[in-house]
């Protein structure tokens, strides 16, 4: 009697634990949140296109057909870190969002980075530039997917100094991103033997750059580095043409440019600009196939920017990881650790990997904007000028101040 009772009790407990364990790992629900700028100066390079890319990733990977429940929500953080964190908090506590995608604007990204670490959620950041996300501010819950200021400085900065641009003047957007880009590019320029002879900070979302451009012109620096992005960069470039800056012998360095910026500038104004991206729709068959499907559903038939391509690529890897784990454990650090174990591979960025500091590495491409007569049609804007292999493109782990990196 006694042994049978104990045996059945033990069996019951074992079965209960087993079933409980199965129930935890077998949760097949995922909620994806795209937090981006839907209405401001960055809304064309992220915005609704990022949400579309996420939608395509969910459809393409096919987990819904395998019995999973995947939800997608998106919100506009309006480039304000406090609004971004409020939305993030509400998403994690109330909406039960598992993963944050895009999160462009370095100020918002750093704020959400802290939130995601605190709440053990996940952020795959495809939009923000600051290299701090995988350096001093690195976290076990964040992966920086597409690009960062170190890579931009390393690729564009070095190429320009090598071509003879040894004196620089910076036009910097006065917030986290501009400061990070100026800092990283200054380091590259100085290391390559150049000099930074001046800089000026302008407020984010400035319409008129004439005053700042005059100061840049007066400095007589060979290169005017634009440490800004989106609407700010296009305004600077347009107005620089008026003041005869390029005609006067100075060169404009676009440290961060997206294809949407070139599209709104037009080839006549943008021709000859050199900058670095990690994705271009016309690079190979894989990128072309994705971009054709994307542009059919995108507003004004636009091609995807590297930020939007990153959302697709990041989500595909996330779903691959969840499938390998057999379910969604709703534990951010655990999933990110597994994501770092698995190499990445998709038609958009090719083969790559995620390092211990959360940095995804892949090759960086130096592009030059075509002249109007070289372009065969709308969105045919870039020619490939150089490639930096993945291992050299990003900050080496030996120089990293990230506590996750074991030295």
């Amino acid at each position: 009697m006694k042994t049978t009772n104990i045996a059945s009790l033990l069996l019951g407990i074992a079965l209960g634990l087993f079933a409980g364990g199965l129930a935890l790992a077998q949760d097949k629900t995922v909620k994806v949140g795209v937090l981006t700028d839907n209405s401001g100066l960055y809304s064309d390079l992220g915005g609704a296109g990022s949400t579309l890319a996420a939608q395509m990733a969910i459809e393409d990977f096919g987990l819904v057909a395998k019995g999973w429940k995947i939800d997608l929500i998106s919100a506009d953080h309006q480039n304000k870190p406090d609004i971004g964190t409020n939305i993030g908090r509400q998403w994690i506590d109330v909406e039960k969002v598992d993963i944050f995608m895009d999160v462009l604007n370095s100020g918002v990204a750093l704020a959400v980075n802290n939130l995601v670490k605190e709440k053990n959620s996940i952020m795959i950041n495809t939009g923000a530039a600051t290299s701090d996300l995988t350096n001093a501010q690195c976290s076990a819950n964040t992966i920086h997917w597409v690009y960062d200021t170190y890579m931009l400085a390393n690729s564009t900065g070095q190429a320009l100094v090598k071509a003879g641009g040894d004196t620089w003047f910076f036009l910097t957007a006065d917030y986290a991103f501009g400061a990070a880009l100026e800092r990283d590019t200054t380091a590259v320029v100085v290391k390559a033997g150049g000099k930074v002879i001046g800089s000026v900070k302008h407020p984010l979302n400035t319409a008129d750059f004439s005053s700042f451009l005059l100061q840049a012109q007066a400095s007589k620096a060979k290169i005017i580095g634009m440490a800004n992005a989106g609407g700010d960069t296009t305004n600077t470039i347009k107005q620089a043409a008026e003041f005869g800056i390029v005609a006067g012998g100075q060169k404009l360095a676009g440290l961060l440019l997206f294809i949407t910026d070139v599209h709104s500038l037009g080839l006549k104004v943008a021709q000859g600009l050199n900058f670095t991206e990690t994705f271009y729709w016309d690079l190979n068959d894989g990128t072309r196939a994705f971009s054709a499907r994307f542009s059919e559903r995108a507003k004004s038939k636009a091609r995807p920017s590297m930020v939007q391509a990153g959302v697709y690529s990041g989500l595909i890897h996330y779903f691959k990881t969840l499938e390998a784990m057999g379910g969604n454990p709703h534990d951010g650090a655990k999933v990110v650790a597994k994501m770092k174990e698995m190499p990445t591979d998709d038609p958009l960025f090719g083969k790559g990997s995620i390092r211990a500091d959360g940095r995804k590495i892949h090759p960086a491409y130096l592009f030059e904007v075509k002249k109007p007569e070289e372009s065969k049609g709308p969105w045919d804007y870039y020619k490939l000028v150089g490639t930096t292999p993945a291992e050299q493109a990003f900050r080496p782990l030996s120089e990293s101040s990230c506590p996750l990196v074991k030295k």
Partner: protein
Amino acid sequence: MQALYAQLLVGLINGSFYALLSLGLAVIFGMLNIINFAHGALYMMGAFCAYFLLDLAGIGYWWALIIAPIAVGIFGMILERTLLQWLSGLDHLYGLLLTFGIALIVQGIFQNYFGSSGLPYAIPDELKGGMNLGFMFLPIYRGWVVVFSLVICLITWYLIERTRLGAYLRAATENPTLVRAFGINVPRMITLTYGLGVGLAALAGVLSAPINQVRPLMGADLIIVVFAVVVIGGMGSIMGSIITGFALGVIEGLTKYFYPEASNTVVFVLMVLVLLVKPSGLTGRTI
């Protein structure tokens, strides 16, 4: 020293946009007692009108300078007839809310179709290039902007303060019943005045299209500063807004030279100071 002169000149150029826009606002407020928050959106519509004229009909800049203000002005007059006229006599707040709502709707519609990156609009060939003034390289187009705005501002001031039509307008807003008794069609005057104010905004939009990207949000960024200009200059004073517009452009330009991080806020700091000392603005009449 040279750099300073250059910044002053650049400030003058920006000031001419402020002056044109605040002139339109001052006309509308002075004549109609409406705080027209839709001004920024109408400025944007002027720029887009110029873009469409070039893109769809091949009509160039010079014609756009005439057609766009008239087209947007007509739109403004329709707005006044259908929506704003019901608010005459009510508290200022109603006009503010209604025009703010109109601005949001118009901007939203344009943003939905055109995104935020902006559309290119080239400087007309006759105005391309620049002059080397010694202390700076002045783009001819920007010099044209200053001269043209000055002329338009002075014409508008003359129209309102020195002609009979202007006298009717001013009388109609001070005492509409009495003026009506004289047989003057007051509602029509009011509609035309609103159209004039809107036309000025659209003209500023066409002027700015070649130098700023034509974006749906271009007005929203500018309108707040323009309101500060109007408040400083005195709500309702025409000459006050013109002078203040240019002056504030210069002050903002100097701030960008000495302490650029404050360039966004210097106009508002000034507004606070003026309001503390003289609430009706520098040259305004008490509301």
